[in-house]
């Protein structure tokens, strides 16, 4: 006789980092969001995080020799929280460290860096970062998705 099994519904995609996949990835997230009755806002901020983080790996990420760029996305709904994990194999970079976005200066003097990560972090209920096995691993949680 089997013991009780418990699992959380999730989906998981492994990709090379390619900008042109962002739209199809977003459509997967939308379909998953419909399965789990995510609000429009939650689906939006999850796709925002994917766009910003994957773009950053492509634009800023550095890779060791012989490493094929890899992005892994996992989205799970263990409970009343959506948990998004983005894994990349570029060299260590902690996006949860302060990037000090410039959100107050005026139109002409304004800098434009650091906005993406600020938005991603501001829209998550909680986030954490770890670097293990040569991989950057950012976890973003969204309550009551």
């Amino acid at each position, binding site marked *: 006789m089997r013991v009780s099994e418990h699992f959380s519904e999730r989906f998981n995609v492994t990709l090379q980092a390619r900008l042109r996949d*962002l*739209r199809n990835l977003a459509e997967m997230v939308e379909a998953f969001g419909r399965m789990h009755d995510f609000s429009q806002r939650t689906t939006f901020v999850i796709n925002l995080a994917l766009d910003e983080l994957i773009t950053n790996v492509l634009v800023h990420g550095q890779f060791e020799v012989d490493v094929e760029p890899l992005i892994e996305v996992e989205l799970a709904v263990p409970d009343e929280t959506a948990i998004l994990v983005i894994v990349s194999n570029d060299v260590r970079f902690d996006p949860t460290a302060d990037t000090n976005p410039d959100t107050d200066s005026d139109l*002409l003097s304004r800098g434009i860096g650091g906005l993406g990560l600020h938005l991603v972090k501001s829209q998550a209920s909680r986030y954490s970062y770890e670097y293990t096995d040569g991989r950057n691993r950012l976890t973003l949680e969204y309550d009551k998705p």
Partner: protein
Amino acid sequence: MNQKLQITSEQVGDSLVLVPLDRVDSSVARDFEDFLDARMQEGHTKLIVDFSKLGFISSAGMRVLLINAKKLKPSGGRLVLCKMRAGIREIFSISGFDHIIKICDSREEALAAM
């Protein structure tokens, strides 16, 4: 589906109203910039971007709007945004962009603000 940027545009008085469809993500931000440049090359200085058909924008697309708002300012031109859904409105506000670029609820308001 379509990986291309899609925008419809409409002249209203001396303003050009642009309606981007679906997504302005980082894969099409460059095309969005080229599109706005081309409109400015044509002499348009009063631009309204109507967000009513837009489900997604990320910082790359927002940056293009900011850059173009800056470009238009010296020549007395203007870039006004309108009809954003709540989630998008929120990131414009968190980024502080709403202090820099005028954001209106309706297209009428945007036209009046020109």
